[in-house]
């Protein structure tokens, strides 16, 4: 029984850690319409898994490196002939495909592909927990430090320039934060559902927020609620943990949208 408690607690801590940093970062993803950007970064990370295993480095380092490479590639290619959504679609799916093919070349290593695609939060160990919380703390610190500049650059690049802020540097800060979140969240929700942890709590927080700060705080709360509640659901119903977390987040989003609609009706 103690063992059971222990892995559930570790899983809950991992989920809370990811939700805490993913939600405020997710707000920027929503505000800047970068949803596909998050997807592309996440999908590229399966390639990082394959590379990490074949070169025998830590999966975290491999994923972080490919996620960063992906994000900077997209930033560099943006506005050079292809529409952003086309570019992201090409890069996201081809990097996922290359990653899957690369994994199949790995000989002698049997890796559980499903664990990387959908996460394996129940297998989170102490070391994983340290990586997750360390990474998330770094992301939160980064966002805290650049908050005002990031918001200004999100509003309008020229406005940022006039205030002495370089919008490309702020974009870079977000890119790095995104790569970090992807790298640490891969264990918790997996490659395919990371974007959901970024977007859904942020979107669900919108109807209840009057300022950006409040939206980020509410998103973090909803994200943590989804993580812990989803784990309990998974345990009670014997369903996969990562998807259960996202399902609960989606249910919260639906509820919040309905509430927002009703509030709007009454006010309008």
């Amino acid at each position, binding site marked *: 029984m103690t063992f059971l408690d222990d892995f559930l607690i570790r899983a809950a801590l991992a989920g809370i850690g990811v939700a805490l940093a993913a939600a405020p970062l997710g707000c920027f993803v929503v505000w800047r319409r970068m949803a596909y950007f998050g997807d592309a970064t996440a999908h590229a990370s399966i390639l990082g898994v394959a590379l990490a295993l074949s070169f025998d480095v830590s999966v975290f380092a491999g994923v972080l490196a490919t996620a960063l490479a992906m994000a900077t590639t997209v930033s560099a290619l943006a506005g050079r002939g292809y529409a952003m959504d086309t570019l992201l679609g090409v890069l996201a799916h081809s990097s996922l495909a290359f990653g899957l093919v690369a994994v199949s070349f790995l000989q002698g290593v049997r890796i559980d592909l499903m664990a990387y695609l959908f996460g394996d939060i129940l297998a989170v160990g102490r070391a994983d927990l340290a990586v997750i919380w360390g990474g998330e703390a770094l992301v939160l610190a980064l966002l805290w430090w650049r908050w*005002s*500049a990031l918001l200004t650059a999100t509003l309008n690049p*020229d*406005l940022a*320039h*006039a205030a002495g802020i370089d919008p490309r540097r702020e974009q870079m800060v977000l890119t790095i934060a995104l790569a970090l979140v992807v790298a640490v969240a891969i264990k918790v929700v997996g490659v395919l559902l990371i974007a959901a942890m970024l977007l859904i709590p942020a979107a669900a927080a*919108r109807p209840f927020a009057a*300022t950006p700060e409040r939206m980020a705080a509410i998103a973090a709360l909803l994200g943590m609620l989804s993580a812990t509640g989803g784990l309990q659901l998974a345990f009670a119903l014997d369903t996969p943990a990562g998807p259960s977390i996202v399902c609960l987040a989606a249910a919260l989003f639906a509820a919040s949208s309905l509430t927002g609609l009703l509030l709007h009706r009454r006010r309008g």
Partner: protein
Amino acid sequence: MPQMPESRRRMSLIALNNLSVRHGGNTVLSGVSLTIEPGEIVTVVGPNGSGKSTLLRSVIGAQKPARGTVTRAPGLRIGYVPQKLHIDPTLPLTVRRFLSLPQRVSDARAAEALEQAGAGDLAARQMSGLSGGQFQRVLLARALLCNPQLLILDEATQGLDQPGSAAFYQRIEKVRQELGCAVLMVSHELHVVMAASDRVICLNGHVCCEGAPEHVASAPEYRALFGTGTQGALALYRHEHNHSHDHDCAHGNGHDHPHEAAE
């Protein structure tokens, strides 16, 4: 560093020297030189694609010059009112919070700037719920927060009706009197904006002509760009008719420019 008389070097807020800007393969601005002195209202007019916005973006440092230099007075405080600002409806933002970006300002200072911009009652409103005119006044208030020496407005009245934009420019004039700041603005509403200016710069990739509004309005280069109708409109406006007219004056109606494209 070229030798300039001490007084002149201290005086000019902005000095563009032989500025050229390229976008991709296109030369948008070539050989533009101009200075802005404290307290003057300078208006840049020109047809679409003449490089007006690029000029302003160069002044605030958002656009790297291909050639030439942009010199700002040391410690110059610039208040910038962008052309338009799309605020995504997913971003919750009150007017008060918007004023504290990126630098936090006190409630008293925010209230003062909103009052100066004629937006005194808007502090608690959401940015995405403002009308066009209210939005512009909030942008103006934000630009006034830093107590600017130079106020830069890029097509600030786009989307406002004529009485609305006339009122906005009257407010700019009032702000100039109160703060003593210089104003650099771009507009295609010639008749409104020229009447309120000390100096007009007619731009079409390069400076075609510049000077007092009356001088520019009668210059052949200007007429070639905008037709002759605008002079009448200017005169009309000078007589303080600021209610709405059905103006038929030409807004850069596709006259070819007589100059060769300067290289």
